[in-house]
């Protein structure tokens, strides 16, 4: 059943549930954070409208910096601005930020421990028709390997807004991953969000499987749990927006309590969120696992839902993976 403690949307299972993109959450969060802290600046690489950096630009033109199509320079200029007392948010598509400018982020932001907030937009296959070049599927892996980097993958627009505000208040570098497509807004302003904390979306008295998910696919995981429950298969759904640092206690609790784990992410199954969970569990409480993600391939053009279904990341595939896992352990 739904976990009422986390105050999810009242319309959560209704057709009327609001949809918005996590990039919209960035736009709102950046404006709010900018109001509270004059040190915040937003750097943009010729994508003001589509990254929603424009929303900040309208409110605070003097703290908006247009860099042109130059993501490497954006990262390094931001490192310099941070050294001079600013809190820069650098924005572009995740394929270029951190895809193009990875070494600049590594040396001048991470190794320097600068409070630069790296905002990777249009991540995952759900950017849709743009195709493989723009469908970043390796960013979580790249960023979580960097020492001292916080990595957040918000589940919806509201959580994205909170993540941006929280990132602005956090010392050190943060990577936040955003999507282009409007996805269900399943949390509310009352839903708790803290960097490093996971939340239980769905719970059960005697769960057979734990579904751990990050990003907007957590809503699909929730739909899968509801469908499984209707079929008499109980599960829990743990939404893990902070991939690093992981909420180790919650993840280990879920593994201990339930005994098998399915992970879900819109990212390569290798090196991303599922790998982070496997690294933790294999050392502290090994349980049978299924890692749902992109299976060592690039994306392609298509509609977001079509692509998620094709790559095995929709509600039906999550249900199937859960059933298969339960069956495999008897």
């Amino acid at each position, binding site marked *: 059943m739904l976990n009422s403690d986390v105050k999810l949307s009242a319309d959560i299972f209704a057709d009327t549930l609001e949809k918005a993109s996590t990039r919209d959450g960035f736009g709102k969060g950046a404006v709010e954070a900018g109001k509270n802290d004059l040190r915040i600046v937003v750097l943009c690489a010729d994508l003001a409208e589509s990254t929603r950096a424009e929303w900040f630009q309208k409110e605070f033109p003097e703290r908006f910096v247009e860099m042109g199509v*130059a993501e490497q320079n954006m990262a390094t200029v931001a*490192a*310099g601005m941070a050294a001079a*007392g600013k809190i820069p948010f650098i924005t572009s598509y995740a394929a270029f930020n951190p895809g193009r400018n990875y070494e600049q982020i590594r040396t*001048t932001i991470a190794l320097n421990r600068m409070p630069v907030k790296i905002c990777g937009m249009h991540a995952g296959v759900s950017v849709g028709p743009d195709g493989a070049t723009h469908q970043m599927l390796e960013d979580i892996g790249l960023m979580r390997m960097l020492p001292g980097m916080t990595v957040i993958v918000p589940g919806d627009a509201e959580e994205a807004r909170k993540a941006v505000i929280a990132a602005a208040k956090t010392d050190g570098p943060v990577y936040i991953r955003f999507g282009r497509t409007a996805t269900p807004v399943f949390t509310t302003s009352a839903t708790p969000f803290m960097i490093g904390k996971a939340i239980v979306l769905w719970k059960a008295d005697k769960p057979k499987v734990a579904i751990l998910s990050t990003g907007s696919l957590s809503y699909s995981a929730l739909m899968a749990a509801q469908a499984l429950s209707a079929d008499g298969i109980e599960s829990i759904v743990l939404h893990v927006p902070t991939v690093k640092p992981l909420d180790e206690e919650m993840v280990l609790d879920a593994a201990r309590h339930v005994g098998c784990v399915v992970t879900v992410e819109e990212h390569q199954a290798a090196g991303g969120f599922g790998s982070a969970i496997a690294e933790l569990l294999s050392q502290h409480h090994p349980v049978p696992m299924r890692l749902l993600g992109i299976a060592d391939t690039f994306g392609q053009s298509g509609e977001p839902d079509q692509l998620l279904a094709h790559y095995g990341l929709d509600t039906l595939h999550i249900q199937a993976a859960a059933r298969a896992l339960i069956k495999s352990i008897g």
Partner: protein
Amino acid sequence: MSLTDEQVCALEAKAEVIRETILRMLVEAKSGHTAGPLGMADIFAAFYFHILNHNPKLPSWEERDRLVLSNGHICPVLYAAMAHSGYFPIEECLTLRKFGSRLQGHPERLRLPGLETTSGPLGEGLSQAAGMAYAFRMDDKKQRVYCLMSDGEQEEGNIWEAAMFAGKYKLSNLIAVMDRNNIQIDGMTEDVMPLEPIADKYRAFNWHVLEVNGNDVRAFISAVDEAKAIYEKPTLIIAHTIPGKGVPEIEFDYRWHGKPPTQEEGKRFLKEIRTMSGKVPHEYA
């Protein structure tokens, strides 16, 4: 304001002790770069003992000028200049590149107070310096940002992104210095990847460009003074230096870019430097 002869002599003497320290560090470390640090000793003496508005006893003083070293591999000269100006004990220089040392093989900001950034991967200093200059201008702060870079690293694309950015925003509080010693690891820059006409390239990016003998402290300081008077543009000072300057037998030899002297070579080189009696001989300048 031109320097007196006494001031010039004093700075040349500082350059000489910096060179001596560089050689001792490299012999002790048994690895590291020789030619670049020796070639830049005069410029570092000029910065740390004349140009910079800084306080070695208070390295995080907010109003200080910022000196960003982009080509981190020449850090022996940076460490030597910092030690001699009082940032840390001169003996510590001999820990260069050793386990546990604050003097990492390439400079790491978090390990040593007084370093403005972490560098080594080439082509990244100019944009960080530009970011600092931009932030200071937003806040109406008056300090200047200096970026020291090599000629070889002009081959990196990131440099030109930074040059475009600094030109667009007319960052006149940014003064870049290019060590034009014409060598890089694989040979002469003009053979590896021609940079010329490098001054015209920066001018085309809306920079004010000066060229100067980088082993002549008086000429260099006067170029920095001119750069400070340019209010419409960032300035690049192309400092023509002699790689290995101060040790005649290795001067101009690109093979000394990336290796240290052996103990015996070190002894011989130190003697050669000592015979210069505080003056950079004009036949090499």
